[in-house]
């Protein structure tokens, strides 16, 4: 859904809706709080109101009760029995004779009232008395033995004013009494007094129907204090407020002082026609609830605040989560969109739900044109036809589909594949694919996703890498073989050095006409050829770095053609015609003419041998500039080159052999020609030593072309040199120390130098040389560079210089110049003389070092 999608609700309205809902929720909560508060207040008020009503009703009930008591007394007073007595008394009868008898019915009636008058099962009265005006107890319902009469108190009970009856207390409030003044013929005759059972009153009237939380108490007030009537205050009641300050029918609150403090609500209601009030006490928690409305409001408000805050926070978290999810989805979408791999996803119905930019670029199909499409729409850009592809295999395995790929591997739920020759954008590309199911939170498959990568270049690079690795392996193999060969060559070179050296001495000693001379010459030449072979080996070992001199290929070829070896080759292959096609203005190169000549010879030799039936070997030279690398057998870098090519029309080289032809000893030729099986290996080594490249093209049955690229040098050819007379390099008796670990070489060099009139001492190691020079001085050192074990020539020279800082020396070695040779020369050593020893070269080098100006 894009930003401009018309179905998208504008964020403003979304926010407005959200805020509106929130505000409505908050308002509703506050409304509920307020209503709850009002309800609590109303409930409290209603409870108070009910309490007042109920208390009033009870008080009225108590009033009725007492009114009923008065009525009882009035009825007693109006009774026949009482009137008979007073009638009889009025007649003057005496108690002894008849009047006393009149009291008996009164007593019986009183007793009957005491017995009969009950509330429930509880007697209302405990005692009723009739007291004469003079204080005489006329009737007492109590048995005589129970009568405890305080005469003084009795007199106080005679109150003529209680004509309608009166209720009051005696004994400090412990007794509740109803009293009625009795008048006989309008004359105060006495008092009828009834003691009311307080327990009956409290149980059946005051507290009837009340809960255990209510306390009802009749009270009188005495100043500030309440006095309980009939009973003592319940023990839990204490701390009653100032009685005088209380307003009747208005609630008051107080806290008990005893034990657990409690809040109480009380109500004082007067009992009509009595001196009493009724106290209704109830714990505040039962009266109006444990929490007052304000506290309730505050508490609920806090709770609501916390809940709302929590809800708001939760909603916020939820919205943030949603936003985060949306953001995540957006980012995921962006991530998918920016994945370097072409990625698309489908739902379970095969409808495209994601089509990222990379796949847009790969296929040229925009997301808007693909999203929502089904029916294998996604396969069209790749295969030009609607068909199931890798992503469809996620839902269901299909062998037919799998066969269309190079392979289909499954690792867990992920499918891997490669497809070659995919006609993508009119090009055959190699693509790799990876497909996986998409799951929801419940683990159900809801779709699939596939990512595709164009690996065409990578595949090409893999091929190139493979080739490079092959070349490297070949080079390493040849290096290894070369190293091996080099090691052998070193020893062989020393042997040859002796042979050639002493042969030279013998030739020098032999007369011109000596019959031995031809043989010696041949030995000499043979030795030199052997040395050349050794050089081949050394070259192979890369230790025989050729002497660097400016040369021209055309001249080398010309010289080669004049060489006996070439003549022998031509003679050995009479049916092979060797022709040259040499560039007239061929540029120069730097290197070793010997090795280049050897290389050319080996190539021509191989070419000749490839044409057993005869043919033409063409040697061609040319100047060539490469403006970009050329991939062949080698990768030829760009640059100026002189190119040498040797081609034949022979049997060609198979592709298998082509890869290995430059390996040492990989040859099919008969042993003994180039002899060692190192011909092409030497060619390879020589080309590499000259920083060149080689290419081979061959086709079986048609021939081969070996093309060698040598970097051009802009230097000029050196002038030709002539032989030097011995007198030019004879010594003058100077002392020379020959240091060589090989005894024969050491003795040969020493003999040659003695012959040249030098005083020579020979030592077998650098250490011996250093020890010798600690005690002696010499004019010149002849240092073999490679001495094993122990110090080589460079280390020896350093140590010697420590003793004799200006010690002159020349370096000799059977190997090519090395960095150590150059270092020794930098320290002050003179010429480097290559073994095998040649008298002239050795003599010239020594003479030059001893007399530099000569």
């Amino acid at each position, binding site marked *: 859904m894009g930003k401009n999608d018309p179905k998208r609700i504008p964020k403003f309205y979304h926010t407005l809706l959200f805020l509106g809902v929130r505000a409505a929720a908050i308002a509703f909560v506050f409304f509920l709080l307020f209503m709850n508060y009002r309800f609590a207040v109303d409930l409290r008020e209603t409870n108070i109101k009910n309490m007042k009503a109920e208390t009033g009703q009870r008080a009225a009930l108590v009033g009725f009760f007492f009114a009923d008591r008065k009525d009882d007394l009035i009825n007693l007073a109006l009774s026949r029995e009482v009137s*008979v007595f007073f009638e*009889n008394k009025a*007649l003057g*009868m*005496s108690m002894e*004779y*008849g009047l006393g*008898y009149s009291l*008996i*019915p009164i007593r019986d009636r009183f007793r009957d009232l005491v017995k009969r008058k009950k509330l429930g099962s509880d007697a209302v009265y405990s005692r009723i008395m009739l007291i004469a005006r003079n204080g005489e107890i006329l009737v007492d319902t109590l048995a005589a033995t129970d009568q405890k009469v305080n005469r003084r108190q009795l007199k106080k009970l005679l109150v003529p004013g209680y004509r309608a009856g009166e209720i009051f207390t005696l004994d400090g409030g412990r007794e509740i009494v109803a009293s009625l003044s009795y008048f006989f013929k309008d004359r105060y005759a006495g008092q009828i007094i009834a003691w009311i059972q307080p327990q009956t009153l409290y149980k059946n009237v005051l507290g009837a129907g009340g809960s255990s939380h209510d306390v009802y108490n009749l009270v009188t007030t005495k100043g500030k204090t309440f006095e309980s009537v009939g009973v003592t205050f319940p023990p839990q009641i204490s701390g009653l407020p100032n009685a005088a300050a209380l307003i009747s029918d208005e609630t008051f609150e107080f806290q008990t002082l005893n034990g657990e403090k409690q809040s109480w609500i009380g109500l004082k209601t007067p009992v009509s026609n009595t001196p009493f009030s009724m106290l209704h006490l109830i714990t505040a928690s039962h009266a109006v609830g444990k929490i007052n409305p304000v506290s309730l409001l505050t508490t609920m408000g806090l709770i609501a605040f916390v809940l709302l805050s929590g809800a708001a926070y939760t909603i916020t978290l939820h919205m943030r989560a949603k936003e985060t999810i949306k953001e995540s989805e957006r980012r995921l979408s962006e991530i998918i969109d920016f994945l370097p791999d072409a990625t698309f996803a489908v739902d379970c119905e095969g409808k495209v739900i994601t089509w990222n930019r990379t796949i847009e670029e790969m296929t040229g199909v925009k997301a808007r044109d693909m999203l929502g499409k089904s029916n294998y729409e996604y396969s069209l850009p790749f295969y030009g036809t609607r068909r199931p592809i890798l992503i469809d295999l996620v839902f269901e395995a299909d062998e037919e589909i799998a066969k269309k790929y190079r392979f289909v591997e499954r690792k867990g739920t992920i499918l891997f594949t490669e497809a070659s020759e995919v006609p993508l954008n009119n090009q055959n590309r190699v693509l790799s694919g990876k497909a996986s199911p998409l799951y929801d939170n419940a683990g159900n498959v809801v779709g699939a996703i596939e990512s595709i990568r164009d690996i065409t270049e990578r595949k090409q690079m893999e091929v190139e890498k493979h080739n490079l690795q092959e070349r490297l392996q070949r080079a390493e193999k040849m290096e290894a073989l070369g190293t091996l060969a080099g090691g052998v060559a070193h020893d062989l070179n020393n042997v040859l050095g002796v042979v050639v050296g002493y042969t030279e001495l013998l030739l020098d000693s032999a007369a011109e006409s000596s019959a031995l001379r031809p043989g010696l010459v041949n030995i000499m030449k043979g030795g030199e050829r052997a040395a050349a072979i050794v050089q081949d080996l050394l070259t192979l070992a890369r230790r025989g770095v050729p002497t660097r001199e400016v040369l021209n290929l055309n001249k080398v070829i010309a010289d080669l053609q004049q060489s006996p070896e070439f003549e022998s080759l031509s003679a050995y292959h009479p049916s092979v015609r060797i022709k040259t096609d040499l560039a007239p203005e061929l540029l120069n190169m730097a290197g070793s003419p010997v090795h280049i000549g050897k290389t050319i010879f080996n190539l021509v030799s191989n070419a000749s041998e490839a044409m057993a039936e005869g043919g033409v070997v063409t040697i061609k030279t040319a100047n060539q500039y490469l403006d970009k690398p050329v991939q062949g057998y080698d990768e030829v870098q760009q640059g100026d080159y002189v190119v040498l090519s040797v081609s034949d029309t022979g049997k060609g080289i198979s592709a298998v052999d082509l890869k290995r032809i430059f390996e040492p000893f990989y040859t099919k030729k008969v042993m003994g020609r180039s002899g060692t099986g190192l011909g092409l290996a030497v060619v390879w080594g020589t080309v590499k030593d000259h920083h060149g490249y080689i290419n081979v093209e061959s086709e079986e049955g048609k021939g081969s072309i070996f093309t060698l690229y040598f970097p051009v040098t802009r230097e000029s050819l050196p002038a030709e040199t002539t032989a030097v007379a011995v007198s030019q390099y004879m010594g003058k008796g100077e002392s020379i120390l020959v240091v060589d670990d090989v005894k024969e070489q050491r003795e040969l060099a020493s003999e040659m130098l003695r012959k040249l009139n030098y005083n020579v001492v020979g030592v077998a190691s650098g250490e011996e040389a250093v020890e010798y020079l600690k005690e002696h001085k010499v004019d010149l050192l002849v240092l073999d560079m490679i001495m094993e074990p122990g110090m080589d020539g460079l280390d020896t020279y350093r140590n010697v210089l420590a003793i004799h800082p200006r010690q002159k020396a020349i370096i000799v070695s059977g190997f090519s110049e090395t960095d150590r040779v150059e270092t020794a020369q930098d320290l002050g050593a003179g010429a480097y003389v290559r073994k095998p020893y040649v008298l002239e070269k050795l003599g010239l080098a020594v003479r030059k070092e001893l007399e530099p100006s000569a």
Partner: protein
Amino acid sequence: MEGFLQKDCVKKLVFVLTIVVTMVFTAGVLIAADLKDVKKKGVLRHLGIPYANFVTGAGDGMDIELMNTFAKYIGVRYEYVPTNWKDIFGDLTGEKVKPNGDDIEVLAQVPVKGDVAAAGITVLPWRKKVVDFSVPVFPNHVWLIARADSPVQPIKPTGNIKKDIEAVKKIIAGQPLLGKAETCLDPSLYGLEKITDKIQSFPGSVNDIAPAVIKGKANLALLDLPDALVALQKWPGKIKVIGPVSGRQYMAVAFAKDSPQLRDAFNKFLRKIKNNGAYQGIVKKYYPYVYVYDPEFFKNNK
């Protein structure tokens, strides 16, 4: 059989036997029965006169209940036999007598109609000569009463009964006085005939004496305690008690002199019901106030 019964000697014999048998049976009637006889007969005959609450006339009364309970005590049936003050002793003893001061005069032999006589009978000297009384059953006083509006005023008690009686006699002196002969209300029993000659014997029931005074048929009258209490209750403010004319008297159950066992049985019975409270219950039922009025009697006569 018919020929035998027709013979004269036989007829005579039958006649004699009939007379003898009749005499035997009637002899039992003529002769007061003692305990054995009562038990043998299986019935206790109670001679009663409607008087106060002793015999209310409605079939109940204190004496009726006592006798009924006594009959059950001795295991016989109870039978009420109404009589009157003139005949009561004759009905009990078989001898009709007439008091003459403290003496009696036997007037005639009469049939015995009852085994016991109980009707609030006051124990008087002359009566003792006629019957044997049980232990006292009820206290009694005889008072002088007057109509409420009579100018005669009640005496002020002195605490001495004799002085009080004298005070009353002074009031009676020369005044018409209503009494009832041959009862405890006979003025001659108290020497009142010596202080006034205007004595009138009430011919009706003792129960009607108080109403007679109220109606003005007599100004002064004698009334015994039980009746006086009843009258005072019935007609409060109509009559007044002036004072005593006698000391304490007793009422008891009368037995024929030849029924000592029966009397002993009754005394024993009375002791028993006094002990078990039944007696008190009967007294309270009919004379509830007498316990308050004369607690001494009941205290001393347990």
